[in-house]
């Protein structure tokens, strides 16, 4: 088994095929989309492949250390940040092929006009614990 992260981007991914922003969908289209995502997660739990799914607020704060005894410096959000993560799902699957298959299904979530968004999702393997036997 191997864990994969399915990353959904607000910004930074190549343009989706059905690239209409959500605020221009009908309320029914939004409901259908949300339902699809919930059903997808529930189905993966049923197959024993679901690990985690979370959505992130679009705006965050940049933070960095500013030296001993000083409070951290905060900045942003920066409108020009190219890569902006919208959320993720973590899956635990038997093969890379299965991970690709599931990412494809998630990318088919319906958007404007009830048609699949064909959104680009980023699929990233987790680094694992080292195996016991190496030679």
């Amino acid at each position: 088994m191997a864990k994969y992260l399915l990353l959904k981007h607000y910004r930074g991914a190549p343009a989706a095929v059905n690239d209409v922003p959500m605020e221009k969908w009908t309320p029914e289209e939004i409901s259908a989309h949300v339902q699809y995502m919930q059903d997808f997660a529930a189905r993966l739990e049923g197959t024993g492949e679901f690990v985690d799914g979370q959505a992130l607020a679009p705006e965050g704060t940049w933070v960095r250390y500013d030296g001993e005894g000083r409070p951290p410096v905060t900045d942003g959000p920066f409108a020009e940040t190219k890569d902006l993560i919208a959320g993720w799902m973590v899956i635990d699957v038997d093969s890379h092929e299965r991970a690709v298959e599931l990412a494809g299904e998630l990318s088919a979530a319906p958007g404007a006009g009830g048609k699949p968004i064909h959104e680009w999702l980023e699929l990233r393997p987790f680094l694992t614990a080292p195996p016991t036997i190496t030679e």
Partner: protein
Amino acid sequence: MDETLLRAVVPTVIGVLGRRGADFAAAEDAVQEALVEAVRVWPAGPPRDPQGWLVTVAWRKFLDATRAETSRRRREERVDAEPAPGPGQEADDSLRLYFLCAHPSLTPASAVALTLRAVGGLTTRQIAQAYLVPEATMAQRISRAKRTVSGVRFDRPGDIATVLRVLYLVFNEGYSGDVDLAAEAIRLTRQLAAVSDHPEVAGLLALMLLHHARRPARTRPDGSLVPLAEQDRGAWDTALIAEGVEVLQAALARDRLGEFQAQAAIAALHADARTAEETDWVQVVEWYDELVRVTGSPIARLNRAVAVGEADGARAGLAALAGLDPALPRYTAVAAYLHEKDGDVATAARLYAEAARSAPNLPEREHLTRQAARLNALLGGRATGSAGGR
């Protein structure tokens, strides 16, 4: 409460319920419920006869689950007539359970989960924690696996190779969290060796023991990996090594070589060397030849190239590497090692950095990054790039 003792009787208890007429899925569920109850109530007052207690409670859980009163009565009548199981029957039950849980119709992950629960007696929660997935997900994985094998009949003996593959996977997962999967794999393989005299079962057990013996020396306190050549061999567990060698020799004497015996023989040669320099690399290469012959595995060929590099020099190692697919996992790391040994520090540094980027786990990536950094320092230039852990 001795949890290991409790878990060791789980296959037997499932077998008893099976003989009383419960199908595998129902029996396994009932025993799991009884286990969860045992974990809850035993610390306050452990029973004198743990197995008897588990049978009684699991049987009650099973009866509660099968609601139809008539079928209950019929089953109860059957219990009265049930003959006491002989030791041979228990061994057969236990072996059948291994085959069922590693059935070829299951995916590796499902077989692993089912084996740990039904043969190993771990709770769903413990298995979920060990594999870092939610308990609900693991519960579903197990119940699907049980549905998959529900129709399996045992008119033919199962394939021991699938069982060994599952136990190997459990061992190789190592130890994360509360459950020590490596120790659990050894326990289950020992238990299997008690009911099966297949030489590859012994081969796998020997392989596990010999690798487990090195565990105290494999990692530094900060979690970083110590390569075999740099391990403190005084920290190796000599009792485990002695046992592993003995189990291996008995298996090899039967002259039915398999991949696990060959791998164990290689591990035994490493265990035999008091220092890395004393390693009998010529014999290691010979065993890799056997391993390649038995498995045809490209990974075995890759590891063989390392051994050839030690036995006959870096050039010979690089020549052995030449015919292999560069896309193999760890190919680049092996190439880096052999190039450094050959004196080509610049190529080795570049390859170590490349290998670090494609390393499948964090300790290995850090190890390879350190190798690249060490060589870059020798080369005198500080590599520029973005700060941080990229």
